[in-house]
């Protein structure tokens, strides 16, 4: 018996519909094609419901609803929208366990992460943007005695959002909260690996939003995502995913001359300087945990600290200690509170991780621990589990350069600050990084030297609203998680007003 009862079992907090249609204009709408696809839980590998297979006609229907709702929604006051966002947050809080179980069941993550991290962060995100929109002001610039430039924020109108599968609810909320706060209507396309979590949430909050303000169309990327991203009827597209699709989305956006925000992944270095091990104290213990953060969400995080850079003098001792910490990771049923690592989100994700365990070995990297698929027995044998894995190698190896998106960290040693920076920046990506040192000057200089949008300093994997998150280099364009995100969802209207009664005298 697990701590939380699995959906489909008597007494579970989650009761799914057997079949989910699209959510358009405040109601469920059957797909134009009449077709559905099966939704699998990675916990057991079994089908648990069916989901509408959307196409361009469904996207158009959703866009119709969004455009119909946009004029009125865009004219609501920031106060009214903030009240709604706060009500959504309160409703989520009252249902946090059910929402967490739903996310775990669809994604495979351990319930302790969904319950104590993902969903509370999502709740807080609505509150943050409720506060941000209340506090946002335009400006009035007195350009000269008779001339004033007024700046107003206006919503873009109807925006498209494409959501990844690693945090099916939190990633949706990261995009929804600022878009709604700014007064936009949304057509959202969830990942086909996790299509239902956001609909489960919608069922809980649907009475709080006017019809057509949020519309959700499921389906395959090529059939539903592409018509959304390429539609001339969206004013902006936001995407989290990988680089080729990111480029394709920019290409479509260029045809329509609309802005894009992209979050495209990383290969984040997690750097441990010698002084970390100067004492065997709470800080050292924290650093060991910081290294082991590669196992958070089974490594399916764009900012997974997947490259461990350890300074030479402490390398041997540090590796013994972090290997011990890694071996203590408890794998198990994702619905048990004591489980630290659950299932990879899908079969193809599992296969991809295994292909990297293979090339890592072929390139001569040494497996320190893990390196295999895990069979957890019983009903979990059908699920997609991988042992937490530490490789030792060098930064030119492909396992140091490519995002595996699994519980795999590749470790190498460095000599001195300069070499640490050289290795850290020898990557195509620049999303996250970690720096660990007891010396604030070292930590500060490293943080400024690393070409990444987020440098966790003596911490890792914290995502509080109010700290801007986004990438340098091939990791994307734009920021999330901060009030500056409102700019990504607003037009600037300038009224340039002359208060002079007199002509210029030119004509």
């Amino acid at each position, binding site marked *: 018996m697990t701590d939380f009862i699995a959906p489909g079992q008597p007494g579970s907090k989650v009761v799914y519909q057997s079949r989910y249609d699209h959510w358009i204009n405040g109601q469920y709408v059957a797909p134009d094609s009449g077709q559905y696809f099966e939704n699998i839980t990675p916990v057991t590998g079994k089908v648990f419901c069916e989901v509408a297979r959307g196409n361009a006609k469904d996207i158009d229907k959703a866009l119709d609803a969004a455009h119909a709702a946009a004029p009125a929604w865009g004219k609501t006051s920031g106060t009214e929208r903030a009240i709604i966002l706060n009500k959504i947050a309160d409703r989520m809080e009252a249902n946090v366990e059910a929402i967490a179980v739903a996310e775990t069941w669809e994604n495979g993550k351990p319930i302790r992460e969904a319950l104590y991290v993902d969903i509370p962060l999502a709740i807080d995100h609505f509150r943050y943007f409720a506060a941000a929109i209340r506090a946002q002001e335009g400006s009035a610039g007195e350009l000269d005695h008779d001339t004033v430039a007024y700046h107003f924020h206006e919503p873009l109108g109807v925006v498209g959002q494409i959501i990844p599968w690693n945090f099916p609810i939190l990633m949706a909320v990261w995009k929804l909260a600022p878009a709604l706060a700014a007064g936009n209507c949304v057509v959202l396309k969830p990942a086909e690996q996790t299509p239902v979590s956001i609909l489960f949430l919608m069922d809980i909050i649907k009475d709080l939003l006017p019809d057509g303000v949020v519309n959700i169309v499921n389906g395959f990327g*090529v059939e539903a995502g592409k018509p959304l991203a390429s539609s001339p009827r969206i004013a902006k597209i936001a995407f989290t995913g*990988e680089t080729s699709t990111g480029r394709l989305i920019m290409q479509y956006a260029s045809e329509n001359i609309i802005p894009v925000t992209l979050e495209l992944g990383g290969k984040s270095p997690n750097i441990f300087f010698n002084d970390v091990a100067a004492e065997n104290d709470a800080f050292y213990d924290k650093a060991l945990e910081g290294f082991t953060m590669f196992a958070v969400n089974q490594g399916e995080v764009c900012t997974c600290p997947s490259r461990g850079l350890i300074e030479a003098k402490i390398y041997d001792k540090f590796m013994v200690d972090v290997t011990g910490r890694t071996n203590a990771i408890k794998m198990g049923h994702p619905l048990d509170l004591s489980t630290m690592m659950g299932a990879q989100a899908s079969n193809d994700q599992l296969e991809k991780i295994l292909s990297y365990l293979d090339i890592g070995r072929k390139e001569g990297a040494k497996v320190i621990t893990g390196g295999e698929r895990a069979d957890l027995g019983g009903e979990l044998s059908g699920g997609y589990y991988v042992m937490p894995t530490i490789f030792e190698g060098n930064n030119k190896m492909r396992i140091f350069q490519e995002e595996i998106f699994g519980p795999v960290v590749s470790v190498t040693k460095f000599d001195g600050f300069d070499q640490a920076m050289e290795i850290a920046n020898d990557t195509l990506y620049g999303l996250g990084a970690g720096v660990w040192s007891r010396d604030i000057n070292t930590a500060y200089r490293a943080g400024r030297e690393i070409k990444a949008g987020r440098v966790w300093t003596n911490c890792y994997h914290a995502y509080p609203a109010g700290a801007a998150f986004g990438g340098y280099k091939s990791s994307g364009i734009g920021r999330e998680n901060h009030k500056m995100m409102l700019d990504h969802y607003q037009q600037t209207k300038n009224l340039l007003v002359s208060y002079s009664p007199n002509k210029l005298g030119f004509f």
Partner: protein
Amino acid sequence: MALPSRVDLTPAAAELLVKLTKINGPLMFHQSGGCCDGSSPMCYLKGEFRVGGSDVLIGELEIPDLAEAIQVWMSAEQFEYWKHTHLTIDVVIGRGGGFSLESTEGKRFLIRSRLFSNEEWEILRHVQVATGAY
């Protein structure tokens, strides 16, 4: 030794490409980097993905049942980190992957890799790869 290939196909991948070509028309691959669905070969309609000077053509896959070869592209900066490995495009059961065409078939293309042998690398390291620049 003839010029070694940088990228090949498994029979299962070739079979799926024949099927996808029949459904959609001529195809291309662009190898993705990064994030959720990344580090995977993305299969698009030929010409759908605009390649340019920042991309390199790493192979042209000849499949007996198809009239034209399927080009495989990768970003040039990514190729710098991949060039010492031979790639085989395989297919597994899966779902979704950006806008890649195979997802509707419940399949997912996947890269399998090996290091080039010394003999292969001795030849390939002198071979310039074409870019997509006009």
